[in-house]
């Protein structure tokens, strides 16, 4: 997963894309606290729109590229507790 910083507030998350239509976002506790949109009540449902735009910009600029599931399958795939 790659680091992406939100252009709006600088909060940093990990992002992975298996295709142009797919996006995975991994937040940390500190990122959740820092995000200005998420900390507002009622916005928890889907995502932070400012962060989503930052992710799209990272893809367009070539900073973030599409990866495959092989890592998942080879590493985490061995055994899951």
């Amino acid at each position: 997963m790659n680091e992406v910083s939100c252009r709006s507030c600088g909060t940093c998350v990990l992002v992975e894309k298996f295709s142009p239509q797919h996006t995975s976002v991994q937040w940390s506790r500190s990122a959740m606290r820092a995000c200005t949109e998420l900390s507002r009540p009622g916005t928890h449902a889907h995502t932070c729109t400012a962060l989503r735009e930052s992710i799209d910009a990272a893809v367009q600029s070539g900073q973030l590229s599409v990866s495959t599931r092989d890592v998942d399958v080879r590493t985490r795939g061995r055994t899951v507790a």
Partner: protein
Amino acid sequence: MNSDSEVRVIDAGAPPTRFARGWHCLGLADSFRDGTPHTVAAFGTELVVFAGEDGTLNVLNAYCPHMGGNLADGTVKGDSLACPFHDWRWNGKGKCTGIPYARRVPPLARTKAWPTLEQNKQLFVWNDPENKQPPADITIPRIAAAFDDEWTDWTWNSMIVEANCREVVDNVVDMAHFFYVHYGFPTFFKNVFEGHIASQYMTSISREDMMGETAKALGGKNTLHSEASYYGPSYMIDYLRSDSADLSVEGYLINCHYPITENRFVLQYGAIAKKPQGVSPERAEQIAASFVGGLGKGFEQDAAIWKRKSRINNPLLCEEDGPVYQLRRWYEQFYTDVADISEEMTARFEFEVDTTRAVTAWEAEVAENLAKRAEQAVAG
């Protein structure tokens, strides 16, 4: 040996020997209020559920600590439950309130009282291997529609599944099975895991080649919007709205379970539907019943798969599959002592699946089926 000839072996592992910490729904609250005690086999043991004279529902260990008699065969006397063996009386707090033939109640006379909660007209019990009280912020949300006259009352169904209960939780990330098992095309699919809540947001359209009775009852081709969340390890609330050309139907589906043993669980589901406006009351009840009946069929279809599949700890995922590993990481918190829960298990994770690409392949399959049928119709 190159990787092309390596065969992938399923790691079935063994199911955990402890049961999930959290609120578990035992059924509709009023079904326990008939004045008699009820047996519930759960969490590797037997429980007894009874309503005292004051109407409160209580859950105790079924076996009397005196000589092991089964309290579920006893009698409710006042606010206590009397054991059928020697009439020892037990209240909802697990305290022995009397032994009619004895001079005094022994000071150690205490049995386990399981914490209970009533919400949405359903009864919940708290399971915790660490035997702590449920935290105030871990609870079951209220569904206002369950108390609204414009909605039907809960239907309720129960089935026993011979599998570990993780199988049903895995479903929350399974986008692809909606096409093959439930005959819908997801056009939007998202999972969000955070804290003790795991959610699925989905929009799907009905498959033209597999239009079932429910779809026909709902007005033919329809779009289904679903917002579902697990609140804890075992209770899911799914808000559904189905839109077709001339009819919109809304409903809430509850999907919940409790383990009997590591390899057997009770799956329960129930639904309410909003009585559609602008139709007669009879027609409204009919539509609601079809909606609810269709949901039940879906579960039977799922259970048929679970009964026959293998447990698999190392799923071999493709790019169009959902976040199975992250879901299992979230689920692991309920099998972990509270002090040992890692940030990984509860930190927010979002996964929006590539529906467009997957749907394209499925669209081809649907078109093929429709073409074959047209051919057969012409030939026959």
